[in-house]
C-alpha cells in the first residue's frame, strides 16, 4: 500500500533534528533505516505528519572507544556493526546477535539505534542491550540525558524517548574477561525470534562469579532473568548447576501465544535456550 502523505526533512545535525521535531509537534516521527517504520507506514498503522530523516547526520554514525566503554552511534547500520572491529573485539555479543537479525538487505539499511528505539520485544537488540547494561544517550529540546537500559524499554513498541527526542548513541561497557552468547530460536522463513536469550558469564576457574541473562520476546519488553543470575552467583561452573539455575529462567515473564508458538511453548524455550546460552558463554 501507499503511505499517507507526509512532509519530509533531512537535517544535517542532531540539534537541527531536535529543533525540527519540536517545531513539527507530536505527529512528527524520526526516520532511521526505515526497516520497521516503512512497513508500518505502508500498512497505515502509523500516519505521521512529518518524517525527520537522520540519514545525513554524520555524528550519529560509527563506533568509538571511550575508556572502558564503546559508544555506538544510533545510525550505525546492522551491517556496519557486524563488520566493526571494535565491536567484534569488545562486544562480540552484539555482533553475534546482529548476524541473526533479518537478512542482508534489511541489515544494509536497518540501524542499531532504530532497532532499540523501536522497542519491539521480539527484536534482538533490546535484550542484548539489557544484558550488557547499556546506557542510552538522548538529545531533546532541553539538552542531553542518559537513560539506563532497565529504564529505556517501557512497553510494547514504547521506549522512554519523547516524541521530540533523538537517540544519539548507545554506550556499552567493554566486557573484558567475560564469555557471551546469543541463543535464538526462530522459524526458518522468518528471522524474528520466537524466543531469544542474551547471556554473559564471568568465571574464575571453576566458579561462576557473575552471570547476566536477558530474554527476547518473553514479555512486552526485554526481561532480565534475575532468578537465574542470583542462582549462579558463586555457583560451580558445571552443567548441573547451570541446568538447575535455568529452572528460574521464565520467572517474572509474561509470554504471549500467537500463530507461531503458545505461551507454554515459549516458557519451555526460555528454559532450554537459557541453558544453551549459558553453557556457550561459560565454555561448558
Amino acid at each position, binding site marked *: *500500500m*501507499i*503511505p*499517507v*502523505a*507526509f*512532509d*519530509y526533512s*533531512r537535517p544535517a545535525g542532531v540539534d537541527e533534528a531536535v529543533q525540527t521535531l519540536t517545531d513539527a509537534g507530536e505527529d512528527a516521527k524520526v*526516520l532511521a533505516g*526505515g*526497516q520497521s517504520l*516503512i*512497513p508500518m*507506514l*505502508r*500498512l497505515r498503522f502509523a500516519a505521521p505528519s512529518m*518524517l525527520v*530523516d537522520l*540519514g545525513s547526520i554524520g555524528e550519529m554514525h560509527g563506533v568509538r572507544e571511550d575508556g572502558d566503554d564503546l559508544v555506538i552511534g544510533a545510525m550505525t547500520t546492522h*551491517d556496519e556493526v557486524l*563488520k*566493526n*572491529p571494535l565491536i*567484534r573485539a569488545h562486544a562480540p555479543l552484539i555482533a553475534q546477535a546482529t548476524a541473526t537479525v*533479518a*537478512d*542482508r*538487505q*534489511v541489515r*544494509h*539499511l536497518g540501524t542499531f539505534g532504530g532497532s532499540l528505539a523501536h522497542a519491539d520485544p521480539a527484536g534482538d537488540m533490546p535484550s542484548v542491550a539489557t544484558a550488557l547494561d547499556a546506557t542510552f544517550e538522548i538529545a531533546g529540546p532541553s539538552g542531553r540525558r542518559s537513560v539506563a537500559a532497565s529504564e529505556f524499554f517501557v512497553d510494547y513498541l514504547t521506549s522512554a524517548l519523547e516524541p521530540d527526542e533523538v537517540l544519539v548513541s548507545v554506550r556499552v561497557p567493554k566486557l573484558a574477561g567475560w564469555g557471551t552468547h546469543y541463543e535464538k530460536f526462530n522459524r526458518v*522463513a*522468518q*528471522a524474528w525470534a520466537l524466543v531469544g536469550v542474551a547471556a554473559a558469564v564471568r568465571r574464575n576457574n571453576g566458579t561462576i562469579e557473575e552471570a547476566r541473562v536477558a530474554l527476547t520476546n518473553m514479555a512486552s519488553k526485554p526481561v532480565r532473568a534475575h532468578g537465574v543470575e542470583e542462582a549462579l552467583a558463586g555457583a560451580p561452573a558445571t552443567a548441573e548447576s547451570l541446568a538447575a539455575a535455568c529452572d528460574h529462567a521464565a520467572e517474572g515473564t509474561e509470554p504471549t501465544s500467537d500463530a507461531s508458538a503458545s505461551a507454554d511453548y515459549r516458557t519451555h524455550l526460555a528454559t532450554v535456550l537459557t541453558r544453551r546460552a549459558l553453557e556457550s558463554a561459560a565454555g561448558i
Partner: protein
Amino acid sequence: MTTISMTVDGVRYDDDVEPRTLLVHHLRDRLGKVGTVVGCDTSNCGACTVLMDGKSVKSCTVFAVQADGTDITTVEGLAARDGEMHPVQQAFHETHALQCGYCTPGMIMSAVDLLAENPDPSDAEIREGLEGNLCRCTGYQNIIKAVREAGQAMQTATAASPEPATSDAGNGVPGQQPAATAPGGPAHTTAVGEVRT
C-alpha cells in the same frame, strides 16, 4: 514535492517526487525500470531487491527521497551494452534456476551483492546470504547451484584478467568493504552521461 537526483543503471535522473513515493514505484512507474518487481509489498520476499551504492536493499522499503544522491543498479543494468549477460544472469539461465521467474530479478541482485562480498561462498553461505529472498517455485536447489557456478565463473574471469584481483575484499573480514561499484567488473559498466528530468 522534493527534488532528487540519482544514477540508475549508469544514467542520471533528476526528478520531483512526493516524499511518500517508494523507490520501487519511482523506478517502475517514473523511470520505466520494470525489471524490478513488487512481490509481497511487506518487506519479506526480496523480489524488489536493487543495489544502492553497491549494497542490496529492498526497494519497496526505501523512500525515493532516501535514495537521493545514490547510485542504483537494477537487474536491467547488469548486462553489458552489447547484450552479453552478467555471469550471475548467465548461470541462472544455464542451470535453470527459475520457473515462473518472479523472484528472479531480486535473487540475481542478492546473488551479485553476496558474491561481491564473498566470491567463493559455501552452499550454506549462499542459503544464508539469500535468506531475504523467497521463491515459491524452484525449491531453491538450482538457485544455489547457479550462484555457486556464477561465483566460480567470476573468479576464473578475475584470474584471467590483467586487472588486479579484488577477490580478497569482504569475505567476512571485519571492517573491509568490497568495491561497491559496478557489479561484474568493468566489462559490464554502462555508459554514463544522459540526464533526464
